[in-house]
């Protein structure tokens, strides 16, 4: 008997004790108190007996082929898969591809119905397309199968509302959340904590120099640190221009997320209205893009060509003071031997709009899921693998490696997250995740993204935001017709 099986038995025993205690306390044994109960049938009965090994027994010998994205997160997770294989007898071929490749390769497989993969990682941006093509096996029925459903995995335990935003389509659950990519603000600690710079900032802005809580504070800090050649920065004379702020700006990048969530949404605007009709030229969006445009003044001259990979490199080289970055890219920079500034960054959640409504508080996140292909001949085994991925035990083991990103609420309290060397980083990421959101199901989202990415470049390079948004409004109407969003899922 393996340690893991013993552990599972112990967990079952604890489950019995907990259930009995709950029965005594509530004098009712009917409900589990979370939506896992709703989806999992009589989970109290199930909880007594359920083990992964037993659930996987009928699928022993099955071979799964899974396509996932490679960032610093997945290679740190990959070694754990051997444990799943050992416990279940299910073999998993876990293939990793880069961001664009996983989109192209995965979508082509899903949309063509070729079915080379049982599970394919998709970003929330792809949801609309794969659902419109009917390429997904929803997990609703699998969650209702008490032989398969682990009673300890419940959707209430995931970081919400992000998880539901991502994995629900109408009333249907389509997947488990797997990767919570998110953006954070970061700055060079040596500059942010320099006594002369702090004094100068306080003198100019009348407040202490500290990680920003609002977009307007972020703008002030960016402006403050933007210096000309020959000026001084932390006592050193600069031999070239120094930008105070850096984030993405490339046409073929992920900047559309920042534009939508961090700027437009926080000003009360969006790409579309509640019915899905394009409304990108709203006055709220014009205001948002004015601030966005101003930030380009404090950015490197080459921001229009900066992609996901350029931003961490620039910060890692110490060639900008602050910026917004996808947090998973930080792992490859803020570690010993990778950058001379490793250990010298300070982090914060992406700031809120000071003039915005609390209800509009959003941050650019890219929650992602591994969906079960409609063509998969092994949906049950695939379900067990995905469920195992997001179980508390697996997530805890993964965090022990030091490189992780929470999808579960309890991971927020993991010692690595709260007390490790990256505590400040995780606090920032968690703060962003609390305000994260996922794209709705938009079949033509990639056409829209292409237009938004071009629009933000032209605004950044000087075009009047009102004119740019009026221009793109017409394009979105051409792309979407009456509605950009596909409704349904019931």
């Amino acid at each position: 008997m393996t340690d893991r099986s013993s552990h599972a038995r112990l967990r079952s025993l604890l489950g019995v004790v907990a259930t009995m205690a709950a029965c005594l306390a509530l004098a009712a044994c009917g409900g589990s108190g979370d939506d896992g109960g709703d989806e999992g049938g009589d989970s109290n009965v199930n909880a007594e007996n359920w083990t992964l090994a037993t659930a996987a027994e009928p699928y022993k010998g099955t071979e799964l082929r899974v396509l996932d994205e490679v960032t610093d997160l997945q290679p740190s997770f990959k070694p754990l898969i051997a444990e799943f294989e050992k416990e279940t007898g299910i073999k998993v071929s876990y293939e990793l591809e880069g961001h664009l490749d996983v989109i192209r390769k995965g979508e082509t497989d899903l949309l063509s119905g070729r079915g080379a993969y049982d599970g394919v990682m998709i970003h929330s941006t792809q949801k609309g397309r794969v659902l419109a093509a009917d390429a997904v096996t929803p997990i609703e029925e699998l969650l209702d199968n008490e032989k398969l459903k682990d009673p300890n995995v419940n959707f209430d335990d995931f970081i919400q509302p992000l998880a539901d935003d991502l994995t629900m389509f109408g009333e249907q659950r389509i997947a488990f959340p797997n990767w919570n990519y998110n953006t954070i603000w970061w700055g060079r600690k040596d500059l942010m904590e320099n006594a002369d710079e702090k004094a100068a900032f306080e003198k100019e802005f009348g407040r202490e120099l500290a990680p920003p809580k609002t977009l307007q504070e972020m703008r002030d800090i960016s402006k403050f640190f933007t210096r000309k050649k020959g000026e001084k920065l932390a006592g050193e004379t600069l031999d070239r221009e120094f930008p105070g702020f850096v984030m993405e700006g490339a046409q073929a990048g992920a900047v559309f997320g920042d534009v939508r969530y961090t700027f437009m949404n926080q000003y009360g605007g969006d790409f579309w209205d509640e019915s899905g009709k394009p409304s990108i030229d709203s006055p709220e969006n014009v205001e948002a893009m004015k601030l966005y445009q101003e930030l380009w003044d404090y950015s490197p001259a080459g921001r229009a060509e900066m992609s996901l990979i350029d931003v961490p490199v620039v910060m890692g080289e110490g060639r900008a003071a602050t910026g917004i970055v996808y947090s998973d890219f930080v792992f490859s920079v803020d570690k010993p031997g990778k950058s001379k500034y490793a250990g010298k960054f300070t982090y914060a959640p992406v700031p809120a709009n000071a003039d915005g409504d609390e209800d509009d508080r959003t941050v650019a996140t890219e929650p992602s899921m591994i969906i079960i292909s409609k063509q998969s001949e092994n949906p049950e085994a695939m379900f067990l693998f995905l469920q195992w991925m997001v179980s508390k035990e697996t997530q805890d083991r993964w965090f022990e490696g030091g490189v992780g990103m929470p999808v579960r609420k309890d991971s927020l309290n993991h010692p690595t997250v709260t007390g490790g060397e990256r505590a400040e980083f995780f606090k920032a990421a968690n703060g962003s995740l609390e305000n994260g959101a996922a794209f709705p199901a938009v079949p033509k989202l990639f056409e829209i993204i292409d237009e938004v990415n071009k629009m933000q470049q032209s605004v950044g390079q000087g075009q009047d935001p009102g004119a740019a948004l009026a221009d793109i409004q017409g394009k979105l109407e051409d792309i979407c017709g009456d509605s950009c969003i596909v409704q349904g899922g019931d």
Partner: protein
Amino acid sequence: MSSVANTGGTAGALPPADSLRDRIRDRIEGGAFPYILLAPALLTLVLVGLVPFGYTVWISLHETSFTTVEGWAGLANFKELVTDGEFWRSMGVTALILAVAVPIQFTVALGFALLLSRGVYASRVLAPALLIPAVIAPTVVAIVWKIMLAPSWGFLTYEFVERFGILSESSIFSTKWSAVAAIILIDVWQWTPFVALALFAGIQALPLSPYRAASVDGASRWATFRYITLPGLYPLLAVLFLIRVIDTFKIFDTVFVLTGGGPQDATQTISIYLYKSVFDFFELGLSAAAAVIIFILFFIFASIAYRLFTRTLKLF
């Protein structure tokens, strides 16, 4: 040997079975034989060339939903495409890169080839080294240039362009004109040495007697080049020109890695446009129609070029 004996000595006297065998043998060794030899190659050509092209034409005439071919669309995809400004802008960008890069490559390459043929120092080492840029995978070329030209961290950009404020408030791939110029420069860097090497080989193969006669007649260097070297290289130049035009028209990898078609579609070549249509937008019908239009344009171009080279200039 035996067949010769049979056919030569016993005509008309053989039993019917032998006549049939002989007739088959005659047929094989006669008119059908070349076709039998050609059949494998023709079959391969049909399978790998014509079948996919035929399928592309078929898709271009249908509506598509993601990767599924649906109802008959007639010429609707073509109609939509010819009125799509982005398609023609992409053709324009490609034509611009082609119109600037190819002449530069040929001019510089010819200069290099002449220099090498005059026996410059270390030419034996230099000549094979010229092949290096051409044999590097285009994606690797793009990554190498990215490392040199990336804003704020690229070696050339950071140490020269930004240090000396050469591109004030901009960067190489941020501005439309400089992004296109950089793509052209990289294409010239990669392919000029190959053209130079080919022309060097061509010059080496030219007969010496006309040069001797010109020398006896006291012809100047320019006259020798103008009336002997250049005409001698025309057939090679024509072939190289065709290869480079076709290759440059297909430019994809370097642009994809370096700019993704940006800023604001400034470097979006027709290959990038097609890639986006298929893999970003899954517009298979439109993409197939674009491929057919490009094929037709190339067919016309190749026909005109071939006619020009063979009939007007009489190069071949």
